[in-house]
């Protein structure tokens, strides 16, 4: 797919170097690193954004010196703009360039005391007070429903402040960071075996993706490639995780529509996948599979047995999917709810099924192929509708693609050597690692030295997409709320870290 995209002539290095006194630095494949002065960082991001770049991450790093790093996804590469801090505590805000920077800059302010000058709304984001929130709409016609942090159902904790006139939702603010467990700090000083355990537990439902991104970052920092066999198994686990997540979204949507048969049938399908994962590795969430360098242990199930299970699963899924999408009382609730247009998604740098439902063909597996995705192909599933129905349809397409990818991954397995794990040298380095989590692209920045992890920074797709959720309420009413929320399929644990 990425081959079809026209590559512009302009190279970011050519673009930025003369204008902004940027200097190129060494970087592994797939990344372009530029060093520039702190005062020009907003101009650099703007220059890239005007040509289609999207702000993917913004965090302070410590290698090679304390700096502010802005990662921009530009023409298939990750362009890392590193601005040395030199003890500075302020920097020009990127929010005037892209609204995708609003929430990360508030987090930077709370966690590292870095103030973005020119940010319109620098309120506290981390560890919010559930009782104190501001109303944005004045007047007596509206009132506030603080939905959360403890919500109505078995859901993760996050607070939504809904300003409504009674039924119509006029404004919505998302307040994450109630579950801020400070896990990024937990990585510091751990050996790789222990650190990957932390990575898996940042967001359990995307644990394989987190472990993949973390391991990939370590491997790229040390210049090591995992074994081919390990790469294929990583792909299998990642795709199984994606299928489980998408089925979970279908279950939640059916539950919102009070379609009990839908809940039951898709609950059965999801349970089959979770049990398959447990048979493959002992954990229903794919834990203990990945380590930097390859796999931690040999798989517990033969590939042909797993394929047989997946064949039966696919037959059932096809019929259940046809029934679900043919139930008018279900689809009527989704069509037209939470509609997003392409411009808004691009402005907020939205990713994942949310962006693909608006026709944006962005998928880290195929734009910046990593691991076995370099050799295993697939199609990026997009639709044009942009509403909750579109997101569900994108997810069903992706399930079909995932099954196809798993079959391809198993095909050549016997041709590879039995080694599961490559050795890791005792070097120092710092690199990005990325993976396409079920919610969107996940980016890790890992700095390693002497066999220990020094710094980890995470850019979570859930956090990137949450402002889009607030922006997707146009003319929707309160009864549509859970449909739209579940159609986004985001996880507060990943966003809050």
């Amino acid at each position, binding site marked *: 797919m990425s081959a079809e995209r026209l590559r512009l002539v302009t190279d970011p290095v050519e673009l930025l170097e003369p204008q902004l006194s940027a200097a190129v630095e060494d970087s592994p494949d797939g990344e372009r690193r530029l060093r520039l002065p702190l005062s020009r960082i907003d101009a650099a991001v703007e220059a890239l954004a005007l040509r289609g770049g999207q702000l993917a991450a913004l965090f302070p790093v410590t290698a090679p010196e304390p700096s502010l790093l802005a990662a921009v996804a530009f023409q298939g590469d990750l362009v890392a703009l590193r601005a040395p801090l030199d003890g500075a505590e302020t920097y020009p805000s990127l929010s005037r360039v892209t609204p995708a920077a609003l929430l990360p800059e508030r987090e930077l302010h709370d966690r590292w005391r870095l103030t973005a000058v020119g940010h319109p709304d620098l309120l506290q984001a981390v560890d919010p007070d559930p009782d104190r929130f501001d109303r944005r709409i004045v007047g007596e016609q509206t009132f506030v429903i603080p939905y959360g942090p403890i919500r109505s159902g078995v859901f993760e904790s996050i607070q939504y402040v809904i300003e409504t006139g009674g039924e119509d939702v006029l404004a919505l603010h998302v307040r994450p960071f109630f579950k801020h467990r400070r896990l990024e700090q937990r990585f510091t000083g751990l050996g790789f075996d222990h650190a990957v*355990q932390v990575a898996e537990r940042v967001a359990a439902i995307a644990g394989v993706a987190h472990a993949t991104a973390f391991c990939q970052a370590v491997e790229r920092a040390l210049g090591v490639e995992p074994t081919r066999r390990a790469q294929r198994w990583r792909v299998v686990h990642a795709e199984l995780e994606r299928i489980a997540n998408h089925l979970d979204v279908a279950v939640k949507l059916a539950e919102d529509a009070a379609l009990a048969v839908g809940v039951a049938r898709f609950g059965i399908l999801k349970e089959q996948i979770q049990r398959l994962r447990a048979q493959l590795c002992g954990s229903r*969430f794919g834990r203990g599979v990945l380590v930097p360098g390859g796999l*931690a242990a040999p798989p517990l199930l033969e590939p042909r047995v797993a394929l047989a299970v997946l064949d039966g699963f696919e037959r059932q899924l096809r019929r259940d999917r046809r029934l679900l999408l043919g139930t008018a009382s279900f689809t009527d609730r989704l069509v037209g709810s939470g509609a997003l247009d392409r411009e808004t998604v691009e402005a907020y740098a939205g990713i994942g099924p949310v962006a693909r439902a608006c026709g944006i063909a962005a998928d880290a597996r195929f734009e910046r192929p990593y691991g076995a995705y370099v050799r295993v192909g697939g199609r990026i599933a997009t639709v044009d509708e942009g509403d909750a129905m579109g997101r569900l349809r994108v997810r069903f397409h992706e399930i079909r693609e995932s099954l196809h990818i798993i079959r391809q991954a198993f095909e050549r397995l016997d041709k590879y050597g039995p080694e599961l794990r490559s050795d890791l040298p005792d070097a120092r380095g710092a690199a990005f690692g990325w993976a396409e989590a079920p919610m969107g692209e996940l980016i890790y920045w890992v700095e390693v030295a002497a066999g220990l992890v020094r710094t980890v920074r995470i850019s979570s797709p859930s956090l990137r997409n949450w402002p889009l959720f607030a922006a997707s309420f146009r003319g929707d009413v309160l009864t549509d709320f859970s449909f739209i929320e579940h159609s986004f399929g985001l996880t*507060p644990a990943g966003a809050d870290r």
Partner: protein
Amino acid sequence: MIEWIARGLRTGIVTTRYPKRPEHPPAGFRGRVDILEADHGMPHLEATCPTGAIHVNEDGRVSLDQGRCILCGLCVAADPVRFAFAHGYETATRRRASLIAGEPGADALEDLRATLGERSRTLRRSIHIRHVDAGSDGGEEWEIQALNNPYYDMQRLGFFFTLSPRHADILLVTGAVTPAMRTPLLRAWETMPEPKAVVAAGTDACSGGLSAAVETSAGGVDAVLPVDVYVPGSPPSPIALLHGLLLATGVLTREAAA
């Protein structure tokens, strides 16, 4: 609608018979780590565990705090003679001390609260559960939601999820309590009428898990609320959760073998 019914009939009954018949996990399933050989342990064993669950005392006696174990399997891989994954799903206990495997007879030194079933005759067969996420990683929520799918169907045992704490009998808490979730969790507890019980689901809830080392987390639910049943696991499987819930209501009295 007929097609749904036809598909359901063709699938048949998939519901487990637990607790009437025991349910066995697949080979290699990570539910609980047991100590096979507790003596003659070397101090370096403590470093294999990322959460510090393994303790070797001066006599060389090895103990594993299952309340801190995140089931990473590193100790099993390092010393398979001494550590192994148990062949069962059940992990729940009513005393925190019972979670420490290898410790000789952690017995009735703790004052146990009566189970819900003992406190109220009517609360044996119809229990309403309010779940609160106090900072989990999201996995426990999936396993708790799985309790309602046709495989586990907790409603046949009389358990129901409720949305309002005023209707709840059991508070099912996941996650080590983060600072921001502490007050909402306490409010949920206050709003529940007597008799009520707390079930801490997941290793994070039992002891703080990976977050325990960070000073800002409370270090487990029992730092904030009186816990009746601990269900360790990372995350605990649905059967383990059912076992824990049945312990809390007093339907089951046998705890997981420590």
